[in-house]
């Protein structure tokens, strides 16, 4: 089916082909017949050999041979005879492999034979066969799979197989299969902690040297670059999970009082927390990688406030077997309060065997911080956010006179310890950066891309003594590389834009100086002060570093190039979101918003919802197709109301959990569909403003 030139059929071809066809047809028919009748004579078995010689893909013939083998071997007792029978089968496999070295049936037949364990394996013959085949085609993955099977079967130590990969790589650096096998073997050896493989540091330093050599000799071959990326990831990820952000953060003061307090220099002013009206405080813990095991003993809360017996942590990001980077709990305050009072809450996350990452590493970086909650008396005001539709400021925030500064410690976790090891990581990466800066990069995109990745890995390593300015410098240099890459490798433009978007977010939010230009406290028409962040017209394609935005209540991301809003689920304080004028192309892409309990105002206008027949987040979101949602439960109500579920399943799953008061959705293809307005009104009973009009 592959690699045959297109040719018009000639009459001579037709005739020859016809004769061949007749022969093959008879052969196949006979073999199938023998299979059905269970005929295992020498003659019948010979026919199956003839067939497999011509067509090793005739899988029923391999099945037949196994049955024939099992049948005939029962009669044999002498080891010589048994060995001879096995050799016959091995030879058939070899003949078949000559015809097609990638025949699944042939390779499996051989594996099956060895697994019968009826005679000792001729190690020389097996490895000899592999050597021959891998010499002809070093990338034959059937061969490599068989080699891995054989090595395990024969008890060949991983160290020996590691040497074999070294031989293959020395022969020819361009051998992805050999590099791949090397990565598998090394990982196993490091996990098993075999002699000589105890130190990740030592091993990865050696591998960096090896691959860098290869890259300098032949930078256009891809294998080395992919291997290098793996080494980079190993070097830049901490061994154990770490907490990188929380809401409320250290020193935060939450209040539902509208009385303006006097703020002293260097102290934080309080944050108006709307959920306190319902005596609820959402807490969010954000880790550097997915973890599980958060519970009342692994996360200790100490306070005079009564949060009730059961504090239950739930995962915010897409969860699998309970792992998530982002966890939340909603603290329900049971205390009664007759006058205004401040309460502190101490959060303590000690070293824990409960909190573990997917690789099994436990949490070992104790954290302790305190925040404050101000409760006002029980008969508090009932704020209606919606007598008028909430509009967004179209000019940049800087031009607004009356903005209050955001206290910036909101971004940091105090008391987070620094890993001892990260110094090695940082040094190793700096060395690599120096090396790669020397490599001429005019035609090789991999050099630039690797350099950019190294810079970002360095930027990300949290080490004491490294200032945000240094981080910004790395970001700037990386941004320059990504811009170059867009020119150098235009067919991967979107990839580089996504990477660039992330770096830009990092640069904008990693230090006070830059970030403060995008932040303010906006006093709403009804006197509520809400924390407002504006990140518009930045060509952002997706949201990064959401852990730095968990305090935000009003977020304006309009006029960007957003295709995704993954990450926003961490913003549990969010009341109002503007993502108008972006590239959101489906309701499923908005699933993160369904996790934000207090979201009331949403502007989706001028996006691409309904304009595409392919939904690229169809399987990322929870749906009946991925068995995360029971169709019957989710849609029964809508089916009763005669809503076309096959057409609107995604709109239904999106709108139902939300309690929006205000929605803007014009400028999306879906909004001009016939029954759409009715659908929205049915799904969101709390809606007061739709596309600027009052609907209640």
């Amino acid at each position, binding site marked *: 089916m592959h690699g045959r030139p297109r040719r018009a059929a000639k009459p001579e071809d037709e005739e020859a082909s016809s004769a061949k066809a007749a022969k093959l047809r008879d052969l196949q028919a006979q073999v199938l017949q023998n299979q059905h009748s269970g005929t295992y004579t020498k003659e019948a078995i010979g026919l199956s050999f003839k067939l497999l010689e011509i067509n090793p893909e005739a899988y*029923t013939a391999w099945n037949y041979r*196994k049955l024939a083998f099992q049948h005939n071997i029962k009669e044999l007792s002498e080891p010589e005879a048994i060995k001879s029978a096995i050799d016959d089968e091995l030879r058939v496999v070899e003949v078949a492999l000559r015809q097609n070295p990638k025949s699944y049936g042939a390779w499996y037949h051989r594996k099956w034979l060895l697994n019968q364990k009826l005679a000792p394996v001729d190690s020389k013959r097996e490895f000899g066969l592999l050597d021959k085949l891998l010499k002809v085609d070093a990338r034959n993955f059937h061969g490599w*799979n068989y080699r891995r099977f054989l090595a395990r079967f024969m008890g060949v130590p991983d160290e020996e197989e590691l040497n074999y990969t070294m031989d293959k790589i020395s022969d020819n650096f361009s051998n992805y299969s050999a590099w791949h096998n090397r990565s598998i073997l090394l990982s196993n050896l490091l996990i098993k902690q075999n002699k000589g493989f105890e130190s990740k540091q030592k091993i990865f330093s050696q591998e960096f040297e090896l691959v860098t050599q290869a890259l300098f000799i032949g930078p256009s071959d*891809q294998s080395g670059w992919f291997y290098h990326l793996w080494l980079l990831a190993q070097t830049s990820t901490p061994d154990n999970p770490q907490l990188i952000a929380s809401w409320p953060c250290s020193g935060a003061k939450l209040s539902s009082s509208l009385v303006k307090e006097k703020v002293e220099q260097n102290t934080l002013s309080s944050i108006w927390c709307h959920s306190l009206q319902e005596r609820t405080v959402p807490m969010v813990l954000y880790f550097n990688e997915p973890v599980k095991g958060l519970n009342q003993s692994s996360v200790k809360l100490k306070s005079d406030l009564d949060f009730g017996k059961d504090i239950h942590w739930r995962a915010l990001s897409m969860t699998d077997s309970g792992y998530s980077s982002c966890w939340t709990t909603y603290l329900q305050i049971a205390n009664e309060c007759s006058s205004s009072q401040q309460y502190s809450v101490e959060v303590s996350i000690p070293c824990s065997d409960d909190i573990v990452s997917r690789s099994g590493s436990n949490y070992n970086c104790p954290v302790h911080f305190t925040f404050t909650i101000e409760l006002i008396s029980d008969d508090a005001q009932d704020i209606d956010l919606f007598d008028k539709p909430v509009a967004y400021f179209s000019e940049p925030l800087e031009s607004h006179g009356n903005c209050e500064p955001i206290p910036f410690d909101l971004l940091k976790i105090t008391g987070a310890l620094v890993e001892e090891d990260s110094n090695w990581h940082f040094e190793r990466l700096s060395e690599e950066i120096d090396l790669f800066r020397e490599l001429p990069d005019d035609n090789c995109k991999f050099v630039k891309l690797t350099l950019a990745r190294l810079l970002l890995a360095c930027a990300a390593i949290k080490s004491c003594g490294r200032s945000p300015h240094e981080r910004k410098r790395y970001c700037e240099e990386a941004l320059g590389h990504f811009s170059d890459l867009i020119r150098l490798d235009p067919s991967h433009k979107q990839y580089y834009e996504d990477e660039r978007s992330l770096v830009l977010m990092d640069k904008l939010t990693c230090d006070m100086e830059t970030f403060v230009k995008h932040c303010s406290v906006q006093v709403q028409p009804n006197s509520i002060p809400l924390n407002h962040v504006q990140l518009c017209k930045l060509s952002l394609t997706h949201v990064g570093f959401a852990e730095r935005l968990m305090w935000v209540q009003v977020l304006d991301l309009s006029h960007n190039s957003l295709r995704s809003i993954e990450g926003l689920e961490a913003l549990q304080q969010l009341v109002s979101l503007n993502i108008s004028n972006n590239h959101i192309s489906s309701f499923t892409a908005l699933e993160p918003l369904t996790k934000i309990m207090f979201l009331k105002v949403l502007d989706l206008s001028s996006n691409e919802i309904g304009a595409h027949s392919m939904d690229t987040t169809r399987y990322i979101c*929870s749906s009946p*197709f*991925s068995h995360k949602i029971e169709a019957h439960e989710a849609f029964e109500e809508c089916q009763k109301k005669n809503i076309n*579920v096959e057409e609107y399943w995604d709109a239904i799953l999106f709108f139902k959990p939300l309690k929006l008061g205000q929605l803007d959705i014009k400028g999306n293809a879906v909004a001009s569909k016939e029954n759409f307005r009715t659908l929205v009104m049915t799904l969101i009973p709390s809606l007061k403003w739709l596309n600027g009009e009052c609907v209640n």
Partner: protein
Amino acid sequence: MAEEAELAADQHVRYIVTVEKKKDSFESLVMEHIRLNGAYWGLTTLDLLHKLHAVEAAEVVDWIMSCYHPESGGFGGNVGHDPHVLYTLSAVQVLCLFDRLDVLDVEKVADYVAGLQNEDGSFSGDIWGEVDTRFSYIALCTLSLLHRLHKIDVQKAVDFVVSCKNLDGGFGAMPGGESHAGQIFCCVGALAITGSLHHIDRDRLGWWLCERQCKDGGLNGRPEKLADVCYSWWVLSSLIMIDRVHWIDKKNLTKFILNCQDKENGGISDRPDNAVDIYHTYFGVAGLSLMEYPGVKPMDPAYALPLDVVNRIFLRK
């Protein structure tokens, strides 16, 4: 080329219908054992081109059932060939196209597939025990379409697929197996169907996949290999499922696929000017579908069936 290449839909329809009838050439005989797969490729392509009615539904259904082994509950690749999951999935998929799952003894077929799950969560292709992540995908896809996923240990099935994840972000045929676009499709599909895509490092895999695009605009299956039209499906559907398809240059890929057409006789080949076959015709059209090519029905990237067929199966009362 002076003019913009276009999809020669009518020619492809004619090619498929003709090939279906030509059973006796040497080429066809060598493929005799996978005719059921061929039926799936041909018929799905017809449906994508809005021409499923070009064949007789009843005839097709009868022939499919003649490949059924009532003792085991599995389907063979052709009449008289041994049962195997590879052909069982194709049979179920074709019956879905025609909305004729009613002809099946659903419990029996589901038990056949479920019975092939091993202790470690992997699946064998048939009673002979070959293990491959292709079979994990096939089992999950088949059982899901039949609404019988509960017959297997889904968590273990997922765990096995995850154990085949490689350090480059891709997946192989078994633990330790090299990343390959075909295996990646199977593993990503398996994880998509079971709501387990969060096991995947989507940026890392997405980058590995988008690097399959060659200078000629086509996609290859792994590094340093030639582009081939069939990867327009394996790579593209994987990218769609992990929401990274925008990392591919769609215009250039479309041009590559259209250049692989035989515009006179119909059919699509693996590479421009090579011999056409049903397999590549299907994958070429399916790839175009994933890129929203006008006139082609949209496909579901996980179940590899037209979107309206999948929506009907999971959303209809």
